[in-house]
């Protein structure tokens, strides 16, 4: 018997065949005939006026075709990069939206900002030319971090943003919260920094721009998570070409995690330059050092939060004050991350009746900050779950017990939180129970004792998270300031021989859509799995799409496949009825077989597809062909939830934290492929561990130089930083999703930092900030004694 391939089957991925044999096709693997190479010149200063650019020496070097600067691009009426989400501040004003030029002109505002491009026959020649460019900068004082960028005497980045303020925003019930705090038996408090991260998809960004003067068409090969969105931005806002003359291809893409959502200056430049140079393709591939400087960074919040509780440990109210670093310019989602994707998740899994959150977003002379792997929700979970364990410790209530007293009861869904969200479903006690059972929570005290005998401090920490994913619905997103629709499309095209090509607007850069979407089609339509091809990533092939971010491919992209499949089935029934000389209402469909109810007369989907394309005998009024499209615009976000538990040991002599055990129980609704879902969770956990223990983007506070600009200084999680991970899922369908799925791409990154930090705090008995580097942990353990010991 063949292995199962339908929804829920652990099908090994079909795309692996090309990746494990070296046949993947990433942008850097593509070479276009006659291509030129681009090397960008980046600002060495955090803040400076560009006094003069002399390109004469560079232009005279062998092989050099062009040197372009910001003036050249601006002169050609190419627009700037955009922010796609208007956040309305607490005074009813839109956020400050300073221009974001493709190549800087006049001023540079962060180290690594694009200043010019050198284009030459070979990469080495382009690099020589870039180096030979003579640029005079007049350095200006820089502002790097929070909260200092809001200080009165802080250097100013943009005329459009006085005080470096992007927005001052709030959500929730300020007065109700104040009232509740005044009546509280206890107030738990915490000050937190959510450390800035650098994405580090393993494939550096790359682009090839190619202009065809014969057809006046432009093609961009790029490392994008959402080629259709890129095309829309390039066309509608940057104005590089009308949408129907522009094709964007994102072939195999080596990870994105948010950083490849955005449209960046390099890809705009390559496209524009190809036309400028009469159609010679222009190729650029980032070096890793450029990725560190220019891939949009993540997180970077400073937060003060307080939780009011009654004498029994019931939550009365939560108030949160957060500052968010936007970097020097806004990118596509920069503004919505610390607002709608963060503050609106602060209820967590709890019945906190009143919540109020203020967010001040500010500009600094650093790289852009935008949505990264969880985007806002890891920050929210971190605030809530740290605070919950602090409150438990303060009040002497066991940390699982305080959670149980405050969980939103399973019978109260849909549940409207005080911060705009309506949770659709969940069973939080069940997730907690299973997590505690898996890690043998009862046995922890004995394990702690045993560790003590070995001189180690052992700790255990929890994170009970909920997140909103499957970014949607369009009407809500629009009402909150989002600039685009948030549907997804799918087109199921039968071939006359019965095989199928599915065109999806979701883009796979590691998620395994080619496998999972084929499983869905096979399951819904009864077409053998191997007869289904999944096409994605090319606006020239796939009609429409919104792409992959915010864990939306399963819930939204999958939903679109379901709608298209329903249309196929409806039409197939009509054709089957004709073929079987029955009435349409009598046709029953099961696994690709269309049967006259109560008889053994049937036709299968392959026969129907053939008939649809060879309609010699065909029902009246039905169009030939079997080719249906679904656009799915969900009714709500989906709300995955879960319990993550970390167990650690700390070496008090060095401060080194070792992860000894890790369990995760997630509710992702219906799991379409457990192999892939578990893999998504593993990766997210590694990111969470990275954030909590290892990773931190550091700029020099004076010069604004990036001090963690390579793997020598930016600490990536490696295999030996992690334990074997024990992950499980429950099976509670999403009530409003056509496939019952909730989205699984970011859960690990969202839940894990809080679990791990809670475990470390439990082990050492002191509060510390992320990342819990050995020195920080050691200092926390030894407190005042440390100085003496180190003398």
């Amino acid at each position, binding site marked *: 018997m063949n292995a199962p391939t339908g929804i829920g089957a652990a099908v*090994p*991925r079909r*795309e*692996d*065949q*090309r*990746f*494990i*044999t*070296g*046949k*993947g*096709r*990433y942008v*850097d*693997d593509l070479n276009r005939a006659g291509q030129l190479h681009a090397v960008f010149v980046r600002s060495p200063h955090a803040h400076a006026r560009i006094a003069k650019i002399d390109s004469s020496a560079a232009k005279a070097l062998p092989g050099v075709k062009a040197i372009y600067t910001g003036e050249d691009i601006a002169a050609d009426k190419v627009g700037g990069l955009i922010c796609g989400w208007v956040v309305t501040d607490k005074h009813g004003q839109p956020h400050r939206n300073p221009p974001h030029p493709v190549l800087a002109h006049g001023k540079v505002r962060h180290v690594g900002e694009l200043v010019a491009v050198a284009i030459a026959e070979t990469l*080495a020649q382009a690099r020589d030319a870039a180096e030979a460019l003579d640029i005079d900068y007049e350095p200006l004082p820089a502002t790097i971090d929070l909260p200092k960028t809001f200080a009165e005497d802080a250097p100013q980045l943009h005329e459009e943003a006085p005080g470096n303020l992007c927005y001052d925003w709030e959500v929730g019930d300020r007065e109700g919260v104040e009232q509740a705090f005044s009546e509280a038996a206890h107030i738990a408090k915490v000050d937190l920094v959510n450390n800035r991260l650098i994405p*580090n*998809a*393993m*494939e*550096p960004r790359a682009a090839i721009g190619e202009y065809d003067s014969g057809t006046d068409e432009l093609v961009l090969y790029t490392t994008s998570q959402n080629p259709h969105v890129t095309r829309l931005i390039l066309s509608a806002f940057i104005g590089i070409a009308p949408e129907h003359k522009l094709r964007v291809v994102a072939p*195999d*893409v*080596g*990870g994105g*995690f948010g950083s490849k959502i955005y449209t960046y200056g390099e890809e705009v430049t390559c496209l524009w330059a190809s036309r400028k140079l009469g159609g010679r393709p222009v190729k650029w591939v980032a*070096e*890793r*050092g450029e990725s560190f400087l220019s891939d949009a960074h993540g997180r970077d919040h400073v937060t003060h939060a307080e939780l009011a509780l009654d004498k029994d440990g019931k939550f009365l109210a939560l108030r949160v004050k957060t500052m968010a670093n936007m970097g020097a310019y806004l990118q596509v989602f920069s503004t919505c991350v610390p607002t709608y994707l963060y503050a609106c998740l602060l209820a967590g899994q709890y019945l906190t009746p009143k919540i109020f959150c203020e967010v001040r977003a500010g500009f600094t002379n650093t790289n852009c900050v935008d949505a990264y792997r969880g985007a806002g929700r890891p920050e929210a979970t971190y605030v809530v779950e740290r605070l919950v364990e602090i409150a438990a410790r303060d009040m002497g209530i066991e940390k699982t017990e305080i959670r149980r007293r405050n969980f939103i009861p399973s019978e109260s869904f849909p549940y409207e939180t005080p911060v705009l969200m309506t949770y659709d479903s969940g069973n939080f006690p069940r997730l907690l129970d299973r997590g505690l059972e898996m890690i043998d929570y009862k046995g922890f005290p004995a394990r702690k004792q045993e560790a003590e005998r070995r001189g180690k401090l052992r700790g255990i920490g929890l994170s009970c998270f909920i997140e909103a994913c499957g970014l949607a619905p369009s009407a809500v997103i629009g009402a909150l300031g989002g600039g685009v629709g948030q549907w997804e499309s799918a087109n199921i095209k039968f071939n006359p021989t019965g095989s199928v090509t599915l065109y999806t607007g979701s883009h796979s*850069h*590691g*998620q*395994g859509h080619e496998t999972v979407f084929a499983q869905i089609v096979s399951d819904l339509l009864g077409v053998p799995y191997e007869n289904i091809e999944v096409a994605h990533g090319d606006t020239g092939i796939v009609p429409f799409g919104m792409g992959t971010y915010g864990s939306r491919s399963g819930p939204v992209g999958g939903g679109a496949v379901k709608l298209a499949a329903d249309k196929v089935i409806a039409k197939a029934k009509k054709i089957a009825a004709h073929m079987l000389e029955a009435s349409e209402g009598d046709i029953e469909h099961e696994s690709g077989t269309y049967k006259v109810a109560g008889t053994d007369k049937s036709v299968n989907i392959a026969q129907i597809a053939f008939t649809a394309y060879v309609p010699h005998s065909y029902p009246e009024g039905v169009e030939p062909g079997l080719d249906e499209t679904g656009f799915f615009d969900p009714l709500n976000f989906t709300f995955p939830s879960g319990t993550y538990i970390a167990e650690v040991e700390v070496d008090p002599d060095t401060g080194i934290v070792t992860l000894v055990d890790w369990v995760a129980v997630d509710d992702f609704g219906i799991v379409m492929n457990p*192999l*892939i879902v*578990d*893999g*998504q969770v*593993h*990766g*997210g*956990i*590694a*990111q969470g561990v990275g954030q909590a223990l290892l990773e931190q983007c550091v700029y020099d506070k004076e010069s604004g130089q990036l001090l963690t600009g*390579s*793997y*020598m200084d930016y600490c*990536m*999680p*490696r*295999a*030996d930083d*992690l334990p*074997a*991970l024990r992950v499980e899922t429950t099976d509670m369908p999403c009530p409003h999703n056509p496939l019952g799925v909730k989205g699984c791409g970011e859960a*690990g990154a969202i839940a894990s930092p809080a679990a791990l930090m809670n475990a470390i705090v439990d082990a050492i008995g002191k509060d510390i900030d992320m990342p819990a580097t050995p020195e920080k942990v050691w200092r926390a353990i030894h407190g005042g004694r440390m100085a003496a010991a180190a003398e």
Partner: protein
Amino acid sequence: MASVTMTVNGESVTREVEPRMLLVQFLREELRLTGTHVGCDTSQCGACVVHVDGKSIKACTMLASQASGKAVTTIEGLAKNGELHPMQAAFREHHGLQCGFCTPGMIMSALDIVQRHGSNVQEKTIREELEGNLCRCTGYHNIVKAIQAAAASM
């Protein structure tokens, strides 16, 4: 220009190249073997790992000239007659890859690990020996599982 001759995946190749050409550029640009990737510029990510005379090396940190006269095996040279190498098959079976970018280097390093540590290689050893290979997608869990499973079958 320097003349470079080496055996790549069993075939002898000769090219005239600049001395500054790296082995990874030689493979990718001269031979169009694009399975070997470049993921960093500080010799740490391991996306470029290939075997030279049977040992894993980082092709971004070796000149093509240094490899002259040697036998190079890349990810493209592992499958024989259309049949996957057990290590490749194990990565697929255990979902040891997601975006696939680090995968060729991972597989080449994994083979080197098994060659040195044998079929009974322990999880801890595998994790330590993967120090020079970064992955951002998988959390390494399934990579380690795949290597252990492949080792047992090799």
